[in-house]
């Protein structure tokens, strides 16, 4: 965990209201775990809370990392206005549990399901898997064609099987990621998912299987980002205890917490 002024190398639109920002700085060296996130202070002293944003890719050779974010409110709007050369105050990497990209073996059936801005951490995960010669099946869900991003990036991964679903069928197939999931013949060995809570809930309901090591990445409004303020808790599956998404997650095993 470091807190650093990172330098914006590039900040560009890659889909409707969706931006890809490349950052550089010594903090990059500490980024080793896909699924962990950065706590980004957006410009302006009137916004006191940082914004949690997943790491979408890391390039240790170039000393850069990438985040992909959607303009939702004031904070992401301000981020979108940053230009190359600007500094952005970043705290991270945060989260003790990411996607276990080091566990699947080559030949395992690894399924990745991403919805909207849930896609970025899965791209980082898929790249790490590719480094270990693990190929992936990918289902990406978006509302409509103009929202789609990273389809091509996933396709460029070796042996990746990529399927895009849009609600209106304007790109790829019409339907949800669950439709695509249901068409698969057998449960995967590994399932890594990130997206809206409802989507994750449906995935868990459809894909929980003794054979499948399932993992989901959760979002919640955060204060500290490191486990000290109890803002971002969720209950454990047995309803007796809780996990902090920022610290114990943001990735959890199927059934570990109540979605």
């Amino acid at each position, binding site marked *: *965990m470091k*807190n650093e002024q990172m330098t914006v190398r590039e900040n560009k639109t890659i889909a409707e209201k969706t931006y890809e920002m490349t950052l550089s700085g010594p903090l990059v060296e500490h980024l080793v775990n896909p699924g962990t996130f950065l706590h980004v*202070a957006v410009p302006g*002293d*009137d*916004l*006191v*809370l*940082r914004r949690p944003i997943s790491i979408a890719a890391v390039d240790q050779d170039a000393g850069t990392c990438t985040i992909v974010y959607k303009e939702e409110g004031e904070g992401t709007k301000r981020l979108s206005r940053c230009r190359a050369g600007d500094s952005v105050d970043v*705290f991270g990497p945060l989260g003790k549990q990411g996607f276990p990209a080091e566990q699947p073996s080559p030949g395992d059936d690894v399924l990745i399901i991403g919805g909207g801005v849930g896609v970025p951490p899965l791209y980082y995960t898929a790249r790490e898997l590719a480094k270990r010669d693990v190929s992936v099946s990918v289902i990406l869900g978006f509302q409509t064609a103009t929202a789609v991003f990273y389809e091509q990036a996933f396709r460029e991964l070796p042996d990746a099987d990529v399927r895009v679903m849009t609600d209106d069928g304007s790109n790829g197939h019409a339907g949800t990621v669950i439709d695509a999931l249901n068409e698969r013949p057998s449960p995967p060995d590994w399932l890594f998912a990130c997206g809206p809570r409802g989507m994750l809930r449906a995935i868990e309901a459809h894909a929980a299987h003794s054979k499948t090591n399932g993992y989901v990445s959760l979002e*919640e*409004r*955060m*204060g*500290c*980002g*490191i*486990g*000290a*303020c*109890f*803002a*971002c*808790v*969720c*209950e454990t599956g047995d309803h007796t205890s*809780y996990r902090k998404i920022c*610290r114990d997650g943001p990735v959890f095993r199927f059934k570990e917490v109540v979605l």
Partner: protein
Amino acid sequence: MTGVDPRLHVTLPGLTMKNPVMPASGCFAFGREYAELFDLSKLGAVAIKGTTGAARLGNPTPRVAETPSGMLNAIGLQNPGAQAVRDEELPFLEGYDVPVLANVSGSTPEEYVHVVKTLTTAPNVGAFELNISCPNVKEGGIQFGTDPEAAAALTTAVKAVSTKPVYVKLSPNVTDVTAIALAVEAAGADGLTLINTLVGMRIDASTGKPVLANEKGGLSGPAVKPVALRMIHDVRQVTGLPIIGMGGIQSAEDVIEFLFAGADAVAVGTANFSNPFVCPTIIRELPAWLDQLGLESIGAFREQGANI
């Protein structure tokens, strides 16, 4: 220890502090997380998360919302309960050379007494901070903080069982904060801490629904700083009790403002979220302020009558 400037030392009832800066209750849990970032021994003290008799799971999420130069929280006093704090959390903090201000919450006077009895034997608990002003739990908490008699009775009850000095944390959601201050002073309080959060609300304009699951929450951060300074100033006019001031502190300059207003030490809450290293940064920057103001020590604000 290197880097300790003796001019920053502050001695308050139960708390011998290297400097006047501590993280505020609820913004630092029990120290474990920030201990991964910096040496907790650098801090003047650590105020731990509000502790209740039994464990509490707190409110539904979302528990925080952003506001202009501030935030709302409705954590709902999530904590592992007094016994677990005594057995598992306080021992961790014993690994550091820093006194603990144990923040105590509850729904009934009996619960406060129980928590204090449980924690008062912990060697590193220097003093208690009675949270009589938490706006985020349905019963208890804030009632004690808005009624001088209830506040005084609670103080008396806790003082009877505590082997450590007792600070009372005042609510800003009152017509006359000095009345509560005087009532708890008469009941034996050893010090005061203020302010807790102002009750506030945010609504999502696009849905018409409150942003917090709990609807209302406590406002903190720079937005409340002028209210905090005013209340500390008002309380300082009526009592000589030690005051730990808080509410919107983000910088060493803010700390100086609070010391001038009448605080003897300060707590930093929300700013830890904006800048996780804010406490050590402030501590590092305080000596230059003493130089600039020509003051000999932090104590000089009170002793030399520098405060207003």
